[in-house]
């Protein structure tokens, strides 16, 4: 059951990601990204991280993606013009490097992969388990991140405002 879900999700995720980077219409890209984000949330569920899956849907699909779509609509972006060639250099070296990168990164990650997942710990991935850690061991980073959000908010307002 999990395996089937995983394969379906994997196909969906890769396909939607390809659409995101290939489609010329940013609105379509955004919609494909939405699919991608939801599939990622599915992966989380399969991996027993329920709380994070929930956050994924709320924060990404609910907030970030809406923001992106909103900006696209606001700027009334049309289809991207026929891409002026970024230069043969960029065009060939980019994918090659990306491929090398994927191989190296994959090898590095796979080197640490266990043959199979262990039996889940009771309470793993619940909001309670995460919350206890977050507000005890990670309390200080948590507060710093809240500061980061404030700064980002102020910065965004400052940048986007026509005139202060």
């Amino acid at each position, binding site marked *: 059951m999990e395996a089937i879900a995983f394969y379906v999700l994997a196909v969906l995720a890769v396909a939607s990601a390809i659409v995101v*980077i290939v489609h010329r219409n940013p609105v379509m890209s955004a919609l494909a990204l939405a699919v991608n984000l939801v599939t990622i949330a599915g992966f*989380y569920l399969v991996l027993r991280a329920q709380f994070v899956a929930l956050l994924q849907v709320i924060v990404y699909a609910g907030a*970030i993606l809406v923001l*992106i779509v909103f*900006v696209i609509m606001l700027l009334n972006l049309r289809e991207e013009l026929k891409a002026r060639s970024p230069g043969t250099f960029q065009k060939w070296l980019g994918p090659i490097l990306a491929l090398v990168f994927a191989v190296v990164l994959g090898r590095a990650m796979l080197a640490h992969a266990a043959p199979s997942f262990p039996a889940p710990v009771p309470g793993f991935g619940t909001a309670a388990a995460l919350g206890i*850690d977050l507000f005890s061991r990670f309390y200080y980073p948590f507060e710093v991140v809240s500061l980061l959000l404030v700064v980002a908010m102020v910065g*965004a307002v400052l940048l986007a405002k026509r005139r202060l």
Partner: protein
Amino acid sequence: MEPRLVLAVSAVLFTLGVLGVLLRRGAITILMSVELMLNAANLAFIAFSRQAGTAEGQIYVFFVMTLAAAEAAVGLAIVIALFRLKGTTDVDEVSLLKW
């Protein structure tokens, strides 16, 4: 389902994000590609969290999401400012910072 497969998916998604950043010109598409990369990284975190049976990986994902939200807010603000200035979101149009 094995950890290797999840990690493989993560690597593929990340590489696709990289390609998007390298090859697309629209600023918003590039931002979306960045989100792809961040999600791929998150997936790897969750996989390792699941493999180790500890919560740290999930905590990191939590922080990465916050970061992504901040990045999206500031990045989109920059896109808006850029659009106001140039009338386009084509990043090749903003190449003034050079010789």
